[in-house]
């Protein structure tokens, strides 16, 4: 796994996203990159905004690629407040504009764009793993 620990993380979403997107594990295809970047942004922003009180803390971000299956794995790890984003309720996308709440779409977009997302809390760390089948 190619990984890097960012500490502190306040206001560093762009840098963390750029690190992951520059990984040699990433596909070249623009459509896939768009979906992956969007998922990464939503997941990273979630940690940067909410994991630590006052934003003081670290985030470890990494990628790996299975040569056989071409499944890309993106892993985010932090030591912030235990939070399972997969337990968040999906938004009701059938509401009218005036009924729609503002926000709450980030994790839903992640779930829609990636093939598989898993979460676990281990040794005081939140670990989010996102997988995407790629082609190269």
């Amino acid at each position, binding site marked *: 796994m190619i990984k890097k620990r960012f500490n502190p993380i306040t206001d560093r*979403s*762009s840098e963390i996203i750029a690190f992951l997107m520059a990984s040699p594990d990433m596909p070249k295809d*623009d*459509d896939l990159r*768009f*979906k992956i*970047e*969007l998922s990464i*942004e*939503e997941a990273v*922003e979630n940690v*940067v905004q909410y994991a630590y009180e006052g934003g003081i803390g670290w985030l470890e971000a990494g990628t790996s690629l299975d040569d056989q299956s071409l499944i890309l794995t993106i892993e985010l790890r932090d030591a912030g407040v235990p939070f399972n984003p997969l337990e968040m309720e999906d*938004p009701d*996308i*059938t*509401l*009218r*504009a*005036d009924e*729609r709440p*503002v*926000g709450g*779409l*980030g994790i*839903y*977009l992640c779930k*829609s*764009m990636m093939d598989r997302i898993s979460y676990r809390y281990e040794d005081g760390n939140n670990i989010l793993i996102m997988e995407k089948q790629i082609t190269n």
Partner: protein
Amino acid sequence: MIVTINKQDEKTFVVLDGRVDSSNADQFQKDVAPLMEGDNTDIDIDCTNMTYTSSQGLRVFLLLQKSVSSRNGKMVMRNMDPRVKEVFDITGFSNIITIV
């Protein structure tokens, strides 16, 4: 994201150029704030060169649509990049914002 606003008679033409993400969404919201008030109730947004939006950008588009609707106006987004359009589709925004 570069936001160009051009008022012609009753209609407001907006051209979006670039991307809106967590790094610039606050500025984007400030840039489109003039559209959320006054007689800007007929808004035409050219999205040809909008290459990316995350949920942070969607948030602003929803605020804008809510504002326009509350003033009995209309808003159209046109020429959306298929990848961006998919983000609007997945989140149901295609049902609440007119996209042509």
